[in-house]
């Protein structure tokens, strides 16, 4: 037992080591958030929830699940990474998959959780930090030649390059072209499904062929092990396998047994009673007690 506990503890220790080794991996988290579009000089473009023309910053969630920005920090000063704390515990800070969130850089944080305590007019850079305030999620160096009412952003969300955009799209994709689904793209290249058939059959065959190879070899291993186990050791005397008197194989016996079983099941009536040696418990209840259900004799 102690040996088992020891093994278990060793296993836990190894697991902890592995987990600590991959601690830096933060897939599907705040580390998938990206700056996507900003408007520095807003003179007559979009308005905020107070009807004001404020500068704004748009962040895009590139993860495959919702991400909560609550607890992260936005700043325009890399020496002060925790300049603006995005409040925790507010459902509005949750950014769904492939969606956007907009913060107004108007130096008026009392207006709400989406209003920052700095503006972009003189900002040279903006950055997003994780809840620890030490790990930078994304950073954007803002060109100083900003144009009035023209946004600066990525042409499509997956791109790396930034440029001035023809359309102002806070809270929406920067790519105005009609969306073509992956399936439509695929069919455009493969209108008769021949490519799909070839790829898919290859994948299905590969998956099952790997299983086949593994099980073929594993089967051989187990058969060999079974044969080795059945061989007598050198000290033992070899005994002849017991022959069936009628020379019938096990399969024939099994078939006869099965036939008898089926025959007996079919010829017997269905019995719904159970024969048991277990004690049948009949707990006392006054509701079922005989003395309360029988009428007493008049005296």
């Amino acid at each position: 037992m102690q040996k088992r506990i020891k093994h278990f503890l060793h296993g836990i220790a190894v697991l902890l080591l592995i987990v600590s080794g991959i601690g830096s991996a933060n897939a599907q988290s705040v580390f998938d958030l990206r700056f996507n579009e900003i408007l520095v000089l807003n003179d007559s473009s979009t308005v905020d929830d107070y009807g004001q023309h404020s500068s704004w910053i748009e962040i895009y969630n590139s993860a495959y699940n919702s991400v909560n920005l609550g607890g992260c920090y936005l700043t325009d000063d890399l020496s002060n990474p925790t300049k603006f704390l995005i409040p925790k515990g507010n459902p509005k800070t949750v950014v769904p998959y492939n969606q956007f969130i907009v913060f107004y850089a108007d130096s008026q944080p009392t207006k709400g959780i989406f209003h920052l305590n700095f503006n972009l007019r003189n900002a040279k850079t903006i950055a997003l930090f994780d809840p620890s305030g030490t790990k930078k999620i994304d950073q954007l160096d803002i060109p100083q030649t900003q144009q009035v009412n023209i946004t600066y952003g990525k042409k499509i969300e997956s791109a790396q390059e930034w440029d001035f955009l023809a359309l102002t799209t806070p809270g929406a994709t920067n790519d105005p072209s009609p969306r073509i689904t992956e399936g439509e793209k695929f069919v455009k290249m493969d209108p008769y499904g021949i490519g799909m058939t070839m790829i898919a059959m290859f994948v299905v065959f590969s998956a099952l062929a790997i299983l086949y190879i593994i099980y073929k070899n594993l089967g051989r291993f187990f058969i060999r092990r079974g044969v080795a186990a059945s061989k007598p050791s050198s000290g033992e005397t070899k005994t002849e396998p017991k022959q069936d008197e009628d020379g019938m194989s096990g399969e024939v016996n099994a078939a006869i047994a099965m036939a008898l079983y089926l025959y007996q099941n079919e010829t017997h009536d269905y019995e719904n009673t159970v024969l048991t040696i277990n004690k049948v418990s009949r707990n006392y209840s006054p509701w079922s007690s005989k003395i309360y259900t029988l009428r007493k004799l008049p005296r």
Partner: protein
Amino acid sequence: MGTFFDFISDHLMQFLQFTAFANMTIGHVIMISIGLYFIYLAIAKEFEPMLLVPIGFGILVGNVAFAPGYQIGIYETGSVLNYLYFGVLNGIYPPLIFLGIGAMTDFSALISNPKLILIGAAAQLGIFGAYSIALALGYSSAEAGAIGIIGGADGPTAIFLASKLAPELLGAIAISAYSYMALVPVIQPPVMRLLTTHKERLIRMKPPRVVSRIEKVIFAIAGMLLTTFIVPSGMPLLGMLFFGNLLRESGVTKRLADTAKGPMIDVVTILIGLTVGASTQATTFLTLKSVGIFALGAASFVIATFGGVMFVKIINLFLKEGNKMNPLIGNAGVSAVPDSARVSQVVGLEYDKTNHLLMHAMGPNVAGVIGSAVAAGVLLSFLA
């Protein structure tokens, strides 16, 4: 007095407007007839009764005509049926059914003769044959993928993929898949006879060896890891299938396995059958697209059977005498478990009364379940 009777008659007339008689269309009558036919097939002919009774009754439920706006119908947000249908639309029920299937499936036949696994892959040709035809007929890529999966002959997989790719066709696809699964004994034998010679039908296969528990446990774990590493999008189905199988084979989780293959799969089957049936409201179901789906479904089953049988014949060219496989088990590569394996057995017995193919056919049959889930994952990866 007269005004009182007017009041009564007005309200009576108003009530009549709410009855199904007032809202009935010819489409509802057709669908109710189909539902009744399904129930007849299930009870009188015993064609897949566990599925056709809930689906057939669901069709009746879904086609009781009603005045919209009272949260009654399956497509009306807030109705009870709509809540139950959530599990279909979001692909929740199919993985739970796969958990039960895994818990009730014995993969011994497959493990003892691993080359049978490959037949399960070959029979998936039906999926992609139907996909190509659907594209040629003008269905969109997502619709064609969802229709093609009917050829996998696996109801939960078809529902899972249709809910992701073409939810608007889900009812037609599910009904088509389950109908043809019930009709496997009718569709497959002519194709099997057409593609095989008399000599091939008499081939005897070696009896499968006994498989140890450790092999079965390894199969469940390795099978899940290997298949889902190749096609992660098939993980909801494959993960649950192998998890259910591990519960069964581990020998230490009997209670969980019993629940998965008993009460749980029964509950989910009832819910999935009833709601899929109810989703066939005449107003949304009776379209030309639905008719096309039924035609493509039949074609996919024929192509799948062709793929499986022909694959065995080709493999036989490379196998030594004595190791050859009977091509009549090729049809079992479609995953209609265990009906298609039973078809192999019945057709085999027609030619040799002592040649029992059932155990051999169960190998490709369960491999077909894995194969169709992998194929669904591939379609999902490319078309979603």
